[in-house]
């Protein structure tokens, strides 16, 4: 059953959704835990038409770029509707945009009309106005903020459009008809892990292809919670996808997420590794504080679930296969797995029903299959959730590919990979040094599977290019192939496994190439290590910047008010050293040059917007720059050395 709307562009999608789903709730805003106000598909479309007409009257032309600065809320979505229904494209960024970024983006994108979410952004934009000759109109989203100095409220513009439409104004309809699939629907400036922000041009056709090709069976009785930043393409594609089948999106926030999960009982959502890590911590904490008998029952249940699931993966060919597996080897192990599966099944059935279901309910209610994106999911978290029966569909993509390139689905759930490429999408791997084709290449052993290479993508989701950066565009997209800059390999069940950023690769002075991410992920499995970054470019060995876990040190009996106090303690230093040694010991699959031999404990944690992206990925070049002295120190003295 496919309940998704197939439309040619997003404005038509909005129109079709209003026709088909009419009074069904499309978006809901939280007033209190059990009091939410819904907006129906018909309402948001009609409001959107009014606002669009208002925008057209304010001088917004087809294919204009309209600024949209704010975070997840109904008014954001309404503005998005209006911009698209007026034939224009929006340029979204969150509340935490800096003044410099505002100046750069508004100027670079040629923004004349901008929506701002709240008082703070309003004030900041007004103070920058003298340096932004192009900017004509500022519209404030928050109904509680008071527009000043010629700015308008959202309501004012909507009213303007509504009275025009009552007089028979149908310019919005004309604009919708004039949209072609190749028109932009958004221009997203990526925070840029390197240099100045780049404007990624995404077209209606890009997004429509995503709606068509995402795996999943949903209908208008589904509920989604929105908590990742909406101006990030991953959350956005999920909201667009939700519109296509008439589901309702509930706007939550990081602070209320736990409550909202229980009350809304979402059936799916866009999630990031950080959310899963938090949930994992919460589950383990609940179990540790429960009755001893129940703890034992959980451990039995988890043990059974692990054995059952691993055997099931093997039997159904869903185990992670990085090496070619000869048929005889598979045949040899098959009886073992079959027997284990059969023996464990009844026990697993019982414990799954009696114990694990309660754990799942505590974790996320009706949540069953949920896409995780925006960063690599640590393997132990991945396994944990898939074992206890919450299928985590890890996906892979980037803003430049609107964003999904590949994702696991229920039919293709190989833990440790990001699934097979979605339909209509081709993947090729290329040796980053020689440029030689690695996969698919019949000249290579096994067609190039299990060999590392840079991932290139071709498909309907690939962006039009970087706005006003033709040179950069032609470097990134060559002959229709987008070079992702990510390293990956194809497993023997034709799933993609990500091996790190090719640009993050650390080359030691010995010439060895090291991918820091797997090592960092491993180190972060230590309860004492909250965050870390592995360094060592052109050095003799690896080093790490470690942010210790304040909670864990306190639990261990340290009297430490701040993280800074931990870094001063020699005892803490010893603990971290032992943890690093334990985590990256040779037995864990790390080669000797992959051992972290020196480290520094940071005085403060890495913060979102500073050292971390909004999706909690570390910004390597920023940290390397900011803590240059600390990194120097790692390699200069005896301090912190083994």
């Amino acid at each position, binding site marked *: 059953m496919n309940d998704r709307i197939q439309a040619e562009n997003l404005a038509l999608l909005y129109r079709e959704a209003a026709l*088909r789903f*009419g009074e*069904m709730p499309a978006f*809901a805003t939280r007033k209190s835990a059990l009091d939410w106000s819904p907006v129906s598909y018909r309402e948001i479309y009609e409001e959107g038409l009014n606002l669009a007409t208002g925008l057209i009257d304010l001088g917004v032309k087809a294919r204009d770029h309209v600024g949209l600065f704010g975070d997840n809320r109904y008014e954001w979505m309404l503005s998005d509707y209006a911009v698209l229904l007026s034939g224009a494209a929006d340029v979204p960024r969150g509340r935490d945009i800096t003044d410099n970024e505002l100046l750069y983006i508004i100027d670079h994108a040629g923004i004349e009309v901008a929506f701002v979410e709240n008082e703070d952004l309003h004030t900041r934009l007004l103070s920058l106005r003298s340096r932004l000759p192009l900017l004509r109109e500022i519209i404030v989203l928050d109904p509680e903020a008071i527009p000043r100095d010629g700015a308008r409220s959202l309501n004012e513009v909507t009213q303007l459009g509504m009275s025009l439409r009552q007089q028979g104004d149908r310019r919005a309809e004309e604009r919708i008809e004039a949209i072609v699939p190749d028109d932009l629907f958004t221009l997203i400036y990526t925070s840029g892990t390197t240099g100045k922000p780049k404007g990624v041009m995404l077209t209606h056709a890009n997004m429509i292809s995503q709606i068509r090709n995402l795996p999943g069976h949903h209908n208008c009785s589904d509920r989604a919670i929105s908590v990742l930043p909406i101006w990030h393409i991953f959350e956005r594609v999920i909201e667009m996808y939700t519109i296509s089948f008439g589901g309702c999106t509930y706007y939550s926030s990081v602070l209320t997420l736990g409550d909202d999960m229980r009350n809304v009982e979402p059936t799916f959502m866009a999630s990031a590794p950080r959310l899963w890590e938090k949930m994992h911590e919460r589950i383990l904490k609940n179990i540790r504080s429960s009755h001893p*008998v*129940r703890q034992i029952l959980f451990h039995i249940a988890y043990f059974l679930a692990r054995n059952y699931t691993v055997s099931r993966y093997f039997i159904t060919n869903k185990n992670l296969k990085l090496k070619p597996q000869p048929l005889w080897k598979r045949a040899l192990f098959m009886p073992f797995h079959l027997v284990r599966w059969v023996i464990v099944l009844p*026990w697993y059935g019982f414990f799954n029903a*009696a114990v694990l279901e309660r754990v799942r309910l505590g974790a996320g209610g009706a949540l069953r299959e949920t896409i995780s994106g925006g960063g690599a999911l640590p393997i132990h978290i991945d396994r944990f959730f898939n074992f206890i029966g919450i299928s985590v569909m890890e996906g892979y993509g980037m803003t430049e590919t609107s964003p999904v390139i590949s994702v696991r689905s229920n039919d293709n759930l190989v833990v440790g990979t990001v699934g097979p490429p979605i339909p209509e999408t081709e993947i090729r791997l290329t040796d980053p040094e020689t440029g030689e084709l690695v996969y698919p290449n019949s000249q290579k052993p096994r067609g190039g599977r299990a060999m590392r290479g840079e991932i290139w993508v071709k498909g309907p989701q690939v962006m039009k290019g970087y706005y006003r950066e033709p040179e950069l565009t032609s470097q990134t997209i060559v002959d229709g192939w987008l070079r992702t800059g990510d390293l990956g390999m194809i497993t023997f069940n034709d799933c993609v496994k990500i091996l790190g950023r090719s640009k993050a690769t650390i080359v030691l002075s010995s010439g060895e190439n090291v991918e820091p991410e797997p090592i960092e992920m491993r180190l972060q499995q230590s309860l004492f290590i909250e965050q870390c970054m592995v360094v060592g470019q052109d050095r003799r060995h690896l080093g790490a910047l470690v942010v210790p876990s304040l909670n864990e040190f306190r639990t261990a009996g340290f009297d430490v008010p701040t993280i800074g106090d931990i870094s001063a303690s020699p005892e803490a230093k010893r603990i971290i050293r032992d943890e690093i040694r334990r985590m990256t010991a040779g037995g864990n699959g790390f080669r000797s040059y992959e051992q972290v031999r020196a480290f520094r404990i940071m005085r403060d944690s890495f913060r979102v917007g500073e050292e971390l992206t909004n999706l909690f990925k570390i910004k390597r070049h920023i940290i390397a720059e900011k803590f240059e002295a600390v990194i120097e120190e790692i390699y200069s003295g005896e301090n912190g050395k083994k």
Partner: protein
Amino acid sequence: MEFDTQLLYPHDQALLAVMIFVIMLGMGASLTVNDFRAVARRPRGVLVGFLSQFGLMPLIALGLSVVLNFDPAFAIALILIGCLPGGTTSNMFTYFSRGSVALSISMTTASTVMALFMMPILLKAYTGRFIAEISAGMRAAGAEADFVIPTGNIISSLVLVLVPVAMGMVLRRKSPDWAKVAEDTAGFVAVIVILYLIGTAFIRHGALFGQTPWQVYAGTIGLGMVGFFFGYWFSRLIGMFPLFQRAVSLETGIQNGPVSFAIILLSFREPVQSQMLWLAILYSTFIVMSSSVITLYFRKRGKLDYDIHKNSVIHNRLFGENYVTEYPEGFLPRRLLKDPSQGSCPAQVRG
């Protein structure tokens, strides 16, 4: 068929008694006084449950015994099982089959109390011809007295079984934490009991499986399956929503196995006891398997109507109790057109 030796040795019986105690304690620990009050709030659902549990099931058991031409001892055991109240296992299976757990709990509660009166009446009504057969057999073997259904003993065993249930309810009031433990342990013990009984039977009397006529297998598997089938369609005929159909279906087919062990051990003597026990063991084993299969089927079949029910309930929870969800035309299955919430939200009822 004949049993040369006792199926269960005295120490097995003692162990079984302890396990029945634990299971019934766990059942009590999962109940509250509110569950009894809820019975009064759901008179229609409980009545349907009553009719299918004490009306349909004993008749199905009788019918199967006659059609399959059962030995009288087997027939009495099958009818006894047919007259049993529902157990807590049905609540768990109902939960996973996306049925109404509340109704399932109400039916279990009501039938457990009702069994005190219904079981003796039904047994008397349906077992007559089999009793005559046994008596004739006994007289032929030189016995003095006739075989009678020990009605008094059955009632006292039922009361005895209800004692740990009451204890469990008290435990729930005193310490919810311990009650949860008791509940989980009981489920675990129930699985162990069945595997233990089947296991010991297999080891000591391996030949039994082969000697047991196919009719007995058909009857023990059939009782549950036919019960599921009739429960499902009977409640459909009455006009119940799918959510409740699934609950009634499972409640009808799944009987409280441990109670049957208790009654057979406490109220019956050889030459019939071992045969009856053997049938009860087979039923308890097969019902877990067939319930699992049915649950998987219901789960798949009920996904859409359950999702719609759930979504409607959540809309009323979050958007106010007067909110009416207007599903797009052609989306609702015909049976949910009048009430997508399936009786859960008054506001969602149409015209």
